[in-house]
């Protein structure tokens, strides 16, 4: 289930500002309260794919350790995509919440 939402998770983790792969994974772990403890390597192909799709941009920097480090940031297109995904997710979440809780959803589901 998590796999299908990796794009949105990575975009959301980067919404606070540019970061390198390790920091993105730490951010996902932190913001999900440790619930999304995925194999770290799976995030990198997602980053590359999102960059190819124009949703992320990247640049190489030299870290304090002297190692070359790739830093990713969300593009305008990526930002728009995240906004759209958030809306869809909220509608879906409300609908499921309504179903499971037996209450009416706040918004019309997508």
């Amino acid at each position, binding site marked *: 289930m998590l796999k299908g939402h990796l794009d949105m998770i990575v975009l959301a983790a980067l919404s606070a500002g540019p970061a390198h792969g390790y920091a993105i994974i730490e951010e996902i772990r932190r913001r999900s309260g440790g619930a999304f403890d995925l194999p*770290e390597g799976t995030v990198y192909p997602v980053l*590359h794919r999102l960059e*190819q*799709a124009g949703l992320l941009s990247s640049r190489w920097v030299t870290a304090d*350790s002297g*190692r070359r480090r*790739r830093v990713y940031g969300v593009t305008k297109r990526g930002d728009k995509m995240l906004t759209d995904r958030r809306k869809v997710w909220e509608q879906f979440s409300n609908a499921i919440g309504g179903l499971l809780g037996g209450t009416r959803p706040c918004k019309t589901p997508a």
Partner: protein
Amino acid sequence: MQDAGLIDDYVERLAGKLDFDRSLSQCVRQEVEDHLREAVATDATNDVAAAERRAVANFGDADAIAAQFAVISLAKQSRRTGSASILGIAAVFIAMKGRVAWYAATQWTTNIDLESIVGIVGSVDRYAFWFSVIAGIGCWLYIGTRRFPHAFNSTFRKQLDRFLLVSTAMIAALMASVVSDGILTAIQLSGTGFSAGSLVPILSMAIEILCAGLLALHIRSTIRRVTQIAALWNA
């Protein structure tokens, strides 16, 4: 101690699996090594060897990760092939039109005995070329509008099969057009002695052959890449 061992072996294994795409392999090597070294550096324990083992284990299976990167590389290569097709066809068109303009400017006449052959070959040339234009644009639009795949699944495989089938038909038609151009050029040049003016049609033919040849090699390389990556996913 920290600079050799488990992390190096892991990074080497992962990058080695992506050797077919050197720039990706190098990029992944640097990026993953930075990640693993960072994980070791931030590990709370003082046991470096154990921290390296944990970092590598948390990163996941190198083969599975390489397979995911390979799909992105293949998607990129197929898009490049689509763009190369358009550029190749455009270059052939410019060379062809340049040669025709040169014939007109220099009032080069066709050997009257061979006019019927010129008519047939000229028709083959035209139809083959315009077929390649339509197929090339179709390929470029088709592959360029597909979403980047998550995996080497049946949907992506079908997209690639369609793309490569039309690309192969396109390059076959372009080759037929270039061969026809070669025949027409040979007819035009026959009966006239070699002069400096002959260099223009010969040069334009060389450009056409080069462009079509490079494009054929590019398509072949994409077909081979599909086979390599299919093997990686099936391993």
